[in-house]
């Protein structure tokens, strides 16, 4: 396959960036999108140019490191992570636009790499449970009803990639925050911090400069892990409940 790539190039956070066009040839339809970028980078390095910087780690769709808005879609046209997106989703001769996540809370570090530490600070605000350390407790020591376990697991699937923020017209982190809140709030292990968790995490989310939710639904459509839009509904319910109880 022969492709034309238009890639966002930006040397550092405080210099203006621009889209730059590159031709790549010899791309196999079985390559992942990241392998295609590796091919481009090898050519750039051989030509004495600066390679394109992009985030990646596990390359098997479970770590949440890879990002990229491809032709206007977070993680590209398939509902998966960029590392699991294959070039067979494109046609020979296509022009592909590759841009970083865009949000005030995700400043560009270089090229396609953005700083997602605002997500870490939301987690630090309450995305944990206070548990005594020591030997692992017996698996049946704390019974969890099956529907609650399923609900928690559905939300625990969030890998924190930030596609929800990138896709949201308001740059909102509601889907991410709600996945983390719901995952722990439904479980008995998360019960002691149930109120403070949602209040603190929402407050940190606001402080980090993410936008608000207008229920556009773009986040849940982009999410590679299928976190449902109703996750936000559940968090809204938790928030009002906590605000009432914590007076």
């Amino acid at each position, binding site marked *: 396959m022969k492709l034309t790539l238009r890639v966002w190039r930006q040397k550092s956070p405080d210099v203006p960036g621009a889209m730059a066009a590159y031709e790549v040839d010899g791309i196999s339809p079985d390559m992942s999108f990241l392998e295609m970028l590796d091919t481009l980078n090898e050519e750039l390095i051989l030509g004495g140019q600066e390679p394109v910087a992009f985030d990646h780690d596990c390359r098997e769709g479970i770590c949440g490191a890879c990002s990229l808005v491809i032709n206007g879609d977070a993680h590209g046209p398939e509902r998966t992570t960029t590392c699991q997106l294959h070039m067979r989703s494109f046609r020979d001769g296509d022009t592909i636009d590759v841009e970083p996540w865009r949000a005030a809370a995700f400043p560009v570090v270089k090229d396609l790499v953005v700083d997602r530490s605002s997500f870490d600070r939301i987690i630090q605000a309450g995305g944990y449970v206070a548990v005594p350390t020591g030997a692992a407790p017996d698996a049946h020591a704390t019974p969890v009803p099956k529907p609650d376990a399923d609900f928690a697991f559905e939300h625990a699937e969030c890998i924190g990639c930030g596609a929800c923020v990138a896709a949201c*017209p308001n740059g909102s982190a509601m889907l991410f925050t709600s996945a983390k809140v719901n995952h722990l709030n439904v479980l008995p292990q998360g019960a002691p911090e149930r109120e403070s968790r949602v209040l603190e995490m*929402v407050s940190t989310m606001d402080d980090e400069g993410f*936008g608000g939710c207008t229920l556009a639904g773009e986040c849940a459509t982009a999410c590679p892990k299928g976190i449902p839009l109703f996750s936000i509904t559940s968090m809204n319910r938790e928030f009002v409940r906590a605000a*009432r109880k914590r*007076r």
Partner: protein
Amino acid sequence: MALDTRTDRRPSFAGLLWGSTVGKKTAMAVSGVVMLLYLVAHLLGNLKIFFGAGEFDAYGQWLRTVGEPFLHHEWFLWIARVVLVVCVVTHGVAAYQLSRRDIAARPTGYVHKRRRASYATRTMRWGGVILALFIVWHILDLTTLTVNPRAESGHPYENLVASFDRWYVAAFYIVAMLALGLHIRHGFWSAAQTLGVGSRARDRVLKTVADVLALVLTAGFVSLPVAVLCGWVS
């Protein structure tokens, strides 16, 4: 001796809500639902226009006497007006503040543009502005009668017909009511999510109710200027 472990004042429920994006949406949802309930009552009352001037004007007079003798003359109307103004202002101020935040949260847009979300969702903000302007005109036209061509107090039927006899006024009403329909279609369903009553199981019901409310209210309100323009009500 027990020491105070917390000396700071805890924020009030209202303060906690208004200080957060999630809480501001709650305020918008509650005020929106109140206004929606009002619109249903408003439509049912307005449809009396099809029963003629006598019944419509008598209905207008009755509104002034609701609650008597417990309430003084017109007090019910004034209570409703105050509640509605509080709702409109809360809804509008929260929408303005949240929109400012939302725009600031994406300082650099994408080069590769594509349409995001449904038409009803994308038009919430400008649709809201159209509705706000409409409300101002509507009150000047048919409540205070400032811009009404007939302006005869106590004769709402005749004032309404005189107003809608001007085609451009009727057209503005129709446009505003179409904006209202779109606003309700996304707004009602969104309010349900914001208030935490939405779920996978209830989604189809909520979306259907939103569509039916939007359709009935728009068609109902549009029928008035159309009826005047067609000469069915004169």
